[in-house]
């Protein structure tokens, strides 16, 4: 009897200490996370012109569905997402498998070379790509000197090619980053499995498809979710390839590089500042990310 009451007391003090210790973190999270989340939702029910606000309820969400610019931005974002992410992840997986082979020389050099782009600044590499892909830039000169093309390719001057350019740029920047995740995953696969497979007569390709990919599944899901989030928030590359839209009126030729995040920026800072509508668009990004992540978990994830 006595024992249990002291235990209760001790529990209570423990609890109190526990709450005390996490209270600071809680306060900080509330101020810097929960409050902005709540407030931006409140904001998304407003039509704003700078500091002039008017409550419009869910009108912003209705307007969104009829806004051709939003739909265009959504389309562009999904084009990048559907084409670039699979290419990048597949490349990353292939590179990782090759570089995991002990018989290859200078593995460290290759790994570093592939990972290096991931530590360069987003703005710096985008500007570099802009220079390389200009109509008289390095890439066109190279291709013309090699007689692969006759006329310079209008990389950044044509709606189609500008999309190609940004996909190349993104792939260069992020493939190595994803490769590192796969590499660390591959180190955890016991060699015996491959040996057994070899004895059973499985070729390298079959080993890759039947062993590597299934075992790496959780990591593949993780990288694809990270890439999904990254692509939906794509901002630096289109912004800088189009020079922030300061000398051009659109983001890329015919708004071909307009992404959701750039649209949010334009709504807030380039056009008449409609922070309410911009908040609405950012909420939509959150929903899309949530839905896509859910699908990816369901399709490819483990039961647990």
């Amino acid at each position, binding site marked *: 009897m006595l024992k249990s009451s002291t235990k209760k007391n001790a529990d209570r003090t423990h609890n109190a200490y526990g709450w005390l*210790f996490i209270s*600071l973190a809680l306060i900080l999270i509330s101020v810097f996370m929960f409050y902005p989340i709540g407030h931006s939702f409140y904001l998304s029910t407003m*039509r704003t*012109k*700078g*500091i*002039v606000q008017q409550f419009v309820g869910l009108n912003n969400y209705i*307007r969104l569905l*009829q*806004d*051709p*610019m939003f739909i*265009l931005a959504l389309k562009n974002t999904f084009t990048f997402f559907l084409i670039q992410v699979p290419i990048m992840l597949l490349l990353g997986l292939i590179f990782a498998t090759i570089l995991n082979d002990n018989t290859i020389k200078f593995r460290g050099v290759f790994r570093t070379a592939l990972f290096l782009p991931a530590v360069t600044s987003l703005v710096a590499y985008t500007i570099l790509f*802009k220079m390389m892909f*200009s*109509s008289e830039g390095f890439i066109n000169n190279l291709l013309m000197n090699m007689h692969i093309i006759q006329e310079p390719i*209008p990389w*950044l*001057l*044509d*709606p189609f090619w500008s999309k190609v350019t940004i996909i190349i740029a993104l792939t260069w920047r992020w493939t190595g980053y994803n490769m590192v995740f796969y590499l660390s995953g591959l180190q955890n696969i016991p060699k015996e499995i491959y040996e057994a497979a070899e004895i059973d007569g499985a070729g390298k390709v079959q080993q890759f498809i039947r062993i590597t990919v299934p075992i790496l599944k959780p990591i593949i899901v993780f990288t694809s979710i990270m890439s999904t989030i990254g692509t939906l928030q794509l901002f630096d590359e289109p912004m800088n390839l*189009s*020079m*922030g*839209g*300061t*000398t*051009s*009126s*659109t983001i*890329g*030729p*015919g*708004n*071909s590089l307009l992404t959701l995040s750039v649209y949010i920026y*334009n709504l*807030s*800072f*380039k*056009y*008449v*500042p409609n*922070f309410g509508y911009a908040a609405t668009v950012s909420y939509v990004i959150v929903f899309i990310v949530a839905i896509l992540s859910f699908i990816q978990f369901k399709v490819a994830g483990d039961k647990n």
Partner: protein
Amino acid sequence: MKKTLSLLVAVLLVLSFVACGNNTTQPPADSEGAQTDKGEMSSENSGKLTIWAWDPNFNIAIMDEAKEIYLKDNPKVEFEIVDIAKGSLEQKLHVNLASGVTDGLPDITLIEDYNAQKYLQSYPGSFADLTGKIKHDDFIDYKVALMTLDGKVYGVPFDTGASGFFYRTDYLKQAGYEAQDLNDLTWAQFIEIGKTVKEKTGKAMLPFGLDDGGLMRIMLQSAGKWYFDDDGSINLTNNDAVKEAVETYKAIVDADIIKPTNGWTEWVASFNNGDSASVVTGIWIIGSIKAENSQSGKWGVAPTPRLNISGSKNASNLGGSSWYVIENSKNKDVAIDFLNKIYAGDNDFYQKILGDKGAVGSYQPAQTGTAYAKEDAFFGNQKIYVDFSAWMKDIPSVNYGLHTYEADAAIFNVMPDVYAGNLSIEDALKKAEEHLKNQIAQ
């Protein structure tokens, strides 16, 4: 030990919160007091003026000049002139004005004319009303109109973006054209000349951003039209100037007389390295043209080509900006006094910045000074500023409204289809108008 440490951390955190709270609430009250004190008590100005502007070779350099002149009579005033890229400056202004915290704001800021009404209407009460404090009658009308809202004038007009047709005299001569052949052209004539130049010299006539709306704005203002009616309602489909401008854009591209460029750097490079024979743009480009010393004496300026519709003049405008004072500035009176004495009263200052920087102000009393009448050796001894002053008087006044950049984006969203011939101009404008309507839905 651990307990005391965590207690310390806790106390520090709480203190920092309190400090934050203080920062945001106190200063405005403080500053009001300080302001009235200064206004009433001291005749000599003191305090610190923070000024935001972009372009170190132009706006910043000119502001430095103004500072030096003002300091002679007001040695106690401190200046902090901050150079921020235009895009970043606008973003910073938006964030600070929207937050309602005035600490981060400068006392004086530069705002581009196309954006003036947007700031004035989006942040009412944030900019100082300068009606009666500055003699706005001395400035060119169209500049003053841009900064007027509900009968109050909020800024001090600065540079004009009066436009001209800058050309390489040597290339044009090679193609068989003299200066007198280039006066008062229409765009159709311009394109014909461009074809000859391309044929005879192999050079492109124009550096041309396929998605750059600058030239279109020049064309529209030359006709006294804009993307909107005077009352601010969208007018794209029923607007002969817009239609003609889009047609001209397509004609220029189809004529194969352009060097397609992407962004400012490529655009400037194309005439600096001699790839293009001309450029049609605002007067502020003179600095960039002169940056290539080896081309001295090889340039000339002619009036801007006009659209082939009635009312279109051979004079237009691109860009230009003006100074604004922040209403809650601690040194508002000093800021206004500074702008008033230098930018709205100092004739010599305008002569100096014109001579040094090629800056053409919109302050009319200064437009008869000695620097204006000077021959410019770079432009083959042409009296270019006399010419520009004359053209400036013809620039049609246009109400840019709030949504210039939205309209620009809507039009250039469909331009690739127009260039490729996938859309007729009527359909393209219909589509653009639809876009724009949704974009600025009220």
